[in-house]
């Protein structure tokens, strides 16, 4: 194992996407290990409900008893079953939010970089305003004004609050690209600006943006879980990892598994996605020589 120049600078210097990038990633231990964890947790979350021993809201015994693998929760529901039911929503919201923030953030970043001058200045200044608003704070202020948020609201909220962060990275990457020959060439050939962006700039940003998206996914999972932890939920009786922590916190001394089980899956999940993202970033930086 020779983890060479493992630079942890957040902004990977853009490397042209190569065909073999994915193969190089596969040779990265970090990427493979993180990928396996992520995949395992994702499969658990998606297919858990099919294999859960009890129903999501089925009462199987007295509250905080030790019946079943992980015992029962504050209401006497089976913790393992709720764990198996509780990941789908977290996973899907975090994923969609990441897609949203990546698309939206990239657009903003590229427009700023490509537009240059005033465009750049104004867009990035507004971006700073959003950045100086801590994400959880934005979530709190907006979500308490809504009685019971719908899942799509969480997607939009988490996605949009991530977007300025992605935009910053995207702008940095795009700035390096817009001055390159192939862009100039396309412009010289009289291509429309929007076409140049779509056809020439965007495809060349793939790899760094993928690493950024992995990072955003990590933070989105954390944010979605944190929102549940603060007691804000789309369906109060449904199982949800963040909310399970909130519901059962009181029982930490009595029936620790009711809290620790969701805590561990969230931890595993974020660790998995972060390792994967880092693996991608490393391949970008040094061509993945392993």
């Amino acid at each position, binding site marked *: *194992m*020779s*983890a*060479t*120049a*493992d*630079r*942890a*600078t*957040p*902004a990977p210097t853009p490397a042209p996407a190569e065909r073999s990038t994915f193969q190089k990633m596969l040779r990265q231990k*970090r990427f493979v290990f993180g990928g396996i964890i992520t995949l395992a947790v994702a499969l658990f979350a998606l297919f858990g409900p099919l294999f859960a021993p009890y129903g999501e809201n089925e009462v199987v015994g007295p509250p905080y008893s030790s019946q079943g693998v992980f015992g029962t929760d504050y209401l006497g529901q089976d913790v393992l079953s709720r764990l198996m039911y509780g990941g789908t929503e977290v996973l899907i919201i975090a994923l969609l939010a990441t897609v949203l923030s990546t698309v939206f953030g990239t657009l903003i970043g590229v427009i700023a970089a490509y537009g240059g001058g005033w465009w750049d200045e104004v867009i990035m*200044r*507004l971006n*700073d*305003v959003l*950045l*100086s*608003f*801590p*994400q*959880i*704070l*934005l979530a*709190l*202020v*907006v979500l*308490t*004004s809504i009685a019971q948020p719908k899942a799509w609201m969480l997607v939009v909220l988490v996605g949009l609050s991530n977007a300025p*962060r*992605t935009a*910053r*990275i995207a702008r*940095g990457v795009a700035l390096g690209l817009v001055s390159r020959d192939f862009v100039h060439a396309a412009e010289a050939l009289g291509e429309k600006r929007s076409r140049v962006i779509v056809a020439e700039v965007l495809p060349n940003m793939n790899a760094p943006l993928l690493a950024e998206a992995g*990072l955003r996914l*990590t*933070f989105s*999972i*954390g*944010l979605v*879980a*944190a929102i549940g*932890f*603060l007691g804000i939920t789309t369906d109060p009786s449904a199982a949800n990892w963040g909310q399970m*922590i909130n519901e059962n*916190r009181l029982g*930490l*001394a009595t029936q*620790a598994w009711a*809290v*620790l089980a969701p*805590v561990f899956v*969230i*931890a595993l999940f*974020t*660790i998995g*996605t*972060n*390792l994967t993202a*880092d693996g991608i970033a490393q391949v970008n930086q040094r061509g993945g020589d392993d």
Partner: protein
Amino acid sequence: MSVDVAPVEHAFEEVAPPKGRHGAAAWVSWIARRLGLAVLTLWLVSILVFVATTALGDPVRAILGKDYNSDKARVAQLTAQLNLDESLVTRYFHWLGNFLTGDFGTSIANQQPVAGQIGDNVVNTLVLVAISAIVMIPVAFGIAMISTNYRRRRPDTVIQTILLMLAALPEFVVGILLVAIFSTTVFHWLPAVTISGPGQHPWNEPKTMILPVATLVLAVAPYVSRIVRANLLEVLDSDYVELARLKGIPERVVMRKHALLNAIVPGIQVIALQLAWLAGGVVLVEKVFNYPGVGNQLVDSVQNHDVPMVQALTLIIAGVYVVVNLVADLLSILLTPRARTAISS
């Protein structure tokens, strides 16, 4: 949310100094520009805060809850106090004017001045953040140096992987794990929550500070440590250090005298930005430990729909963020010889 990355990069970019001006004039113009941008940012933030908080629904109902229907006197009083019959724009400028003159308004939840209630919590949070920073900086640098020492060998990889994993964990997850280990489930060594008596601060009972500080350190240190290590490695690989090595200076001295000094500038900036992040990011940590700081107060105020409190707290947090950003920029310029010369020559 774990530590965020983007702002750091942003600061690096902004360091790029203006060119082609001369001496003091260039400095003044650079600083003026940065200050102007900071003020502009704060102003936009104030609009955002104001609009977001006034969108909270009818605060009067939220405040009175079950008593709304029975206590008409308070309904009328609160409506008047909040100027709910004026237009949004009028209210905004009225509020901004008061805010700038130091009048943060009156809490609608308990009819006491906002400033007086926030003061203690701001101090509590600042102390928590400061202690965390004091603990975090040597820890982060230490780990980075150990890791660099073993660079590209097994211990380095192991440390880096562990740091990467820690950086991924949401801070409330870290906090709960620490409580489970040290307070409730495994051991019973430390108090799980902060309780401060009347007129007391949490640190009067130093034991209660340990877990909140540990949580924040674990949330921030991995990230800082990774950046510092990356910078150390870059310096160590540079010709300049290579030269020192060739001169026969021992590796330990090279590390201390040459590499560390050069890695400290980006380190400072990262730390400053992490401190800014902490000012807002402590919300969840304070909630886990019931710590009487601004984060906890903010959650409480949002739930109470206490508009003036939410406005003041969010603006303070955003203000800290912007100011620390500015200071970090200034410091890095002053500490980077290249940037310094670029501005004044």
